[in-house]
């Protein structure tokens, strides 16, 4: 058993290194740039469109994504510093899902997966290394997006004349850290589900059609008429995690459900990759 684990770990290490070499291409910069741009855009929208009101309002009753439904009172609180960043989590989640799903299905479409498996036949190790690098890249991209988001939020808040003094307190830092951690957990979930769906379906159009159609419009449409959807459907669950909980799904149950979805998706990806023939 320990020999197998050692072998997988060694394979994962090599896979991580190889994926790191592959990162130096334009698509990586484009994806990271888009993530940052989406985060900044959502921040600008959240801060500039916030309704005047006290800190207790805006609890998702506005019809739009709950992260966008905030008041100036909420923005001025210490946690306001992370509101814009969290508000865009649905979009960053969608982007991460798209990028990861496209990347893995292109490995099938371009035939590069067989080239990789000829050099590294321990498929689980390869998958582990690739996922580790993907998560690291997501983490780094989110840090960059967070920094830009805070800068954009401060700028727009100044233009709107909002009081942001509470942002720069210890509570503000804690809100920022927890906002980042939640966004990271959510993005990791989207990334792993995107990988699993791509490995299972092996086709870029099919993966995007199934994944995007289900996790984004369909889940949200069902969620509008059934509050339980936010606690059960993966896309909504990851959304709830990224925002630290929403009215229809508290944080702790959403986190548990999100972790369960992520582990299940990882298991599906591992099983499909290890068992199925590579014919492309």
């Amino acid at each position, binding site marked *: 058993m320990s020999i197998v684990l050692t072998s997988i770990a060694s394979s994962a290490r090599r896979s991580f290194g190889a994926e790191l070499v*592959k990162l130096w291409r334009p698509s990586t910069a484009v994806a990271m740039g888009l993530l940052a741009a989406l985060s900044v855009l959502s921040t600008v929208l959240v801060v500039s469109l916030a309704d005047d009101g006290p800190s207790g309002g805006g609890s998702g009753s506005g019809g739009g994504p709950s992260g966008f439904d905030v008041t100036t009172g909420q923005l001025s609180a210490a946690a306001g510093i992370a509101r814009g960043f969290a508000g865009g989590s649905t979009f960053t989640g969608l982007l991460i899902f798209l990028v990861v799903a496209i990347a893995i299905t292109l490995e099938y479409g371009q035939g590069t997966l067989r080239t990789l498996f000829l050099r590294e036949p321990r498929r689980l190790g390869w998958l582990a290394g690739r996922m580790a690098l993907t998560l690291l890249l997501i983490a780094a991209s989110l840090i960059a997006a967070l920094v830009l988001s805070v800068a954009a939020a401060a700028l727009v808040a100044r233009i709107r004349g909002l009081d942001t003094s509470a942002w720069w307190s210890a509570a503000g830092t804690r809100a920022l850290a927890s906002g980042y951690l939640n966004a990271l957990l959510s993005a990791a979930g989207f990334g792993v589900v995107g990988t699993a769906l791509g490995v299972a379906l092996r086709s870029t159009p099919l993966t995007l059609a199934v994944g995007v159609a289900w996790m984004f419009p369909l889940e949200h449409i069902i969620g509008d008429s059934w509050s339980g959807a936010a606690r059960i459907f993966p896309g909504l669950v990851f959304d709830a995690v990224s925002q630290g909980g929403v009215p229809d799904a508290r944080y702790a149950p959403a986190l548990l459900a999100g972790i369960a979805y992520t582990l299940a998706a990882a298991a599906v990806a591992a099983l499909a990759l290890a068992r199925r*023939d590579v*014919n492309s």
Partner: protein
Amino acid sequence: MTATTNEPAIDVRGLTKRYGRRTAVDGLDLTIPTGVVAGFVGPNGAGKTTTLRMLLGLVRPSGGDGTVLGAPLGAPAAYLPRVGALIESPALYPTLSGRRNLAALAVLAGIPRAEVDARVEAILDQVGLAGRGADRFRSYSLGMKQRLAIGAALLTDPDLLVLDEPTNGLDPIGIREMRELIRSLGDGDSLGDGDSDGSAEPARRGRTVLVSSHLLAEVEQICDWLIVVEGGRLAYQGPTDRLMASQSIDVVLRPEHPEDVAPLADLLAGLGLPSTRGVDDVLTTVNVGARDSREYTRALASVNRAAASRGVTLIEMSPRRDSLEDRYQGLVTQAQAQTQEARR
């Protein structure tokens, strides 16, 4: 790294792959000696690529077992580090440079980081892409892409090189370059005396190369071992020259005077060599009974002496051998007939 034993590079029995009710590869027994350049031929859909994929761990066999480079077929991780392969079209990352493509694969193969750059440069040089290493893969011509993919296969200096249709889509110059490259890969690390001298034993070399191709002329020029498959079954395997030596050799005889054709035919009949009269007053004998080139020369000399003793002067004695394509066609037709017979 070179092979050091006389164990076959590939030795598998009953290799089978079924997709639902369709059998793509049907109980294939393959033995490929270490050090040969082996040609793997068969019509489209004969099961060549599926067989190669099974040997390379990409496709799980439905049945059969054996060894590749001495390691069990079911444990590709044990032998793939010593195998380089190009399966179907060259599949590398279009937006990465040739150099970075190779570097990624070198790291994945476990080549120490400190050695990656030197190894990549050596490979680029070997496949003639030293000046284009910084260019993106997608900017390469098909021939360059093929060469880079072969370079990727050579990264670990493999004992066994598997190339699936490496000349596909190449122009004549590209095909010639590829042929020379494959020949040089097979010739590298010479362990023995090199060229085949017409005997049944294949030339012994350090690296085993298995080349799948539908271009028989290419196979004939570069391969000393031949495997023919049809309908997922083995039709022939063995030295290429044994296959060619086992055929009948027609000989065309042309006497100086057309009126000598009939006496010459009687003379040949007396020697037990049947003949037919062709157009332009030539005779074609069927099978002079030679098993190799030396016997063939002796047989021709006997015929010539006999003709001269009867006062018949021959102005042409030319062999008309089957080409590899003729032999291949015969094998495939025979295999197809056996398959149909088995189905009945």
